[in-house]
């Protein structure tokens, strides 16, 4: 079985400065991989490089094979066919990931209609509206009719993130990249969104690339992790191995920090 996403010595540079260095991992259908590391360690850049969406001024080298196609150096038009079909991304900050001036129903309808068209079964009118409402149902949004007509600023943070997830699902991706999807949310909502992602990935048999610096969350969500530090891979392996028996000081310090935070939370509650 060929991997959905396979990175080999992927590096990202800004001029001569390396932001991600020689990163390698691969991800099959149904697998879940966590990419962890402190802020600025290159997690988001990795996901952007893997989808060919690096901002201007940054360049990638090495190999990133997504759904059998080499992403590095591929023309944008080819990548566009992959994006929204093979892969979709859920971003960290749901408020900025949604167009403030477009009703959220329309925002979800957009990728839905595109995917349907690519599949040769175009959707429009009421059928499209129904499909949007069905997706809202799938991400457990209450009052889908009302919410479809709302603008992002009229929704709660958790609702917005559900919309963002619905937009990603609308692409029917084989691989879902979730870039710190719960960082901007409060603890209760976090748990709900994680539960939702977990269920969706299972039900749709998607692969999940889960990006986070929240170790407990990662431990509960994925099977394997890659630990990044300043763009370098520090450690990689099964969650139980890496977290149970960290070999690298950096991983130990991340774990210690997470534990301290945990203790503090429990002490307070």
């Amino acid at each position, binding site marked *: 079985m060929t991997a959905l996403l396979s990175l080999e010595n992927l590096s990202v540079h800004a001029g001569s400065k390396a932001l991600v260095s020689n990163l390698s991992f691969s991800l099959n259908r149904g697998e879940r991989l966590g990419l962890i590391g402190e802020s600025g360690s290159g997690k988001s850049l990795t996901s952007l490089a893997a989808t060919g969406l690096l901002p*201007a*001024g940054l360049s990638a080298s090495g190999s990133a094979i997504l759904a059998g196609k080499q992403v590095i150096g591929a023309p944008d038009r080819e990548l*566009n066919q*992959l994006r929204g079909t093979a892969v*979709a*991304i859920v971003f960290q900050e749901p408020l900025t990931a949604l167009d403030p*001036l*477009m009703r959220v129903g329309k925002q979800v309808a957009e990728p839905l209609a595109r995917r349907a068209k690519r599949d040769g079964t175009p959707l429009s009118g009421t059928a499209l509206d129904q499909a949007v409402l069905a997706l809202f149902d799938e991400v457990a949004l209450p009052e889908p009719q009302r919410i479809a007509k709302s603008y992002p600023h009229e929704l709660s943070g958790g609702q917005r993130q559900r919309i963002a997830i619905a937009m990603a699902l609308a692409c029917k991706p084989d691989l879902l990249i979730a870039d710190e999807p719960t960082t901007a949310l409060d603890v209760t909502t976090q748990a709900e969104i994680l539960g939702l992602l977990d269920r969706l990935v299972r039900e749709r048999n998607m692969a999940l690339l889960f990006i986070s610096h929240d170790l407990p969350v990662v431990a509960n969500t994925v099977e394997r992790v890659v630990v990044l530090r300043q763009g370098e891979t520090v450690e990689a392996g099964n969650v139980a191995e890496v977290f149970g028996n960290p070999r690298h000081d950096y991983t130990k310090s991340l774990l210690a920090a997470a534990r301290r935070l945990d203790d503090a939370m429990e002490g307070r509650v």
Partner: protein
Amino acid sequence: MSTTTMTAPADKKSHSLALKAGVVLVGVHIAIGLLTLVWLPYDPTAMAGGRLEGPSLLHWLGTDRLGRDLFTQMMIGSRIALIVGVGAVTIGAVIGVTLGLLAAFASKWLDDALAATLDILIAFPTLLIAMLVVAASDTANLWSAIFALGIALSAIVARLTRILAKRVLVMDYITAARTSGSGWPKIVAIHILPNIWPTLSVNFALQFGLAVIAEASLSYLGLGAPPPNASWGRILQEAQGTVYTAPLGAIAPGIALVSLAIGVNLLADGLRDTIDPTRRAR
């Protein structure tokens, strides 16, 4: 929800008041402008009464030094001002938005080159650029003035569009649209233009005012529409010799200019608040 609606009414009221004032001011000029197409009180070029008569029931604003009815000329002035404003802003918007978007998407060196060119163009006063363009075309008429003003405005519009589009381009929802497989033309149409439109449209209103005033200045300098087009600027220029004996000839064009410019700005401000849902709710 309840707290926002508590504070909303006062704000809303002043907004809708501004919008109404804008509608009335602009509406009056449009109504007059349209009326001139089918009816005028007097022949604008013929002697309609004595020279420099004061206001009367027959001549609401009096007559000028050639005995022509001033109110009739002011009416035609409204029509010309509207044509100039709409024409110049349309030309400026089409060229400016296109250039601005191109710059926002261009490679770094092309973007830098465009940005520098625009900065240099903008450093010249609008009026000066318009004068140069008019001077370069051999016949001064209304359309050469409109074209010249449109070109001059397009630099300002382009610079603003470029900045606004760049700001939208780095937003997550653009990346999100790209990850879902949206192509650039579509992203420009459904995300970028709608998001820069509220700010652009208010700027267009400002440009409208600028264009009308600049055309009046061109006419005042004799570079605008030639007679018998009674532009407000020409009325002003012709009245300046007799400003102490017949001050209305100078006052009326001034008031007309200011009322139209303010009206368009109030209208644009009010409209933006009704277009933009994030403002509407607040």
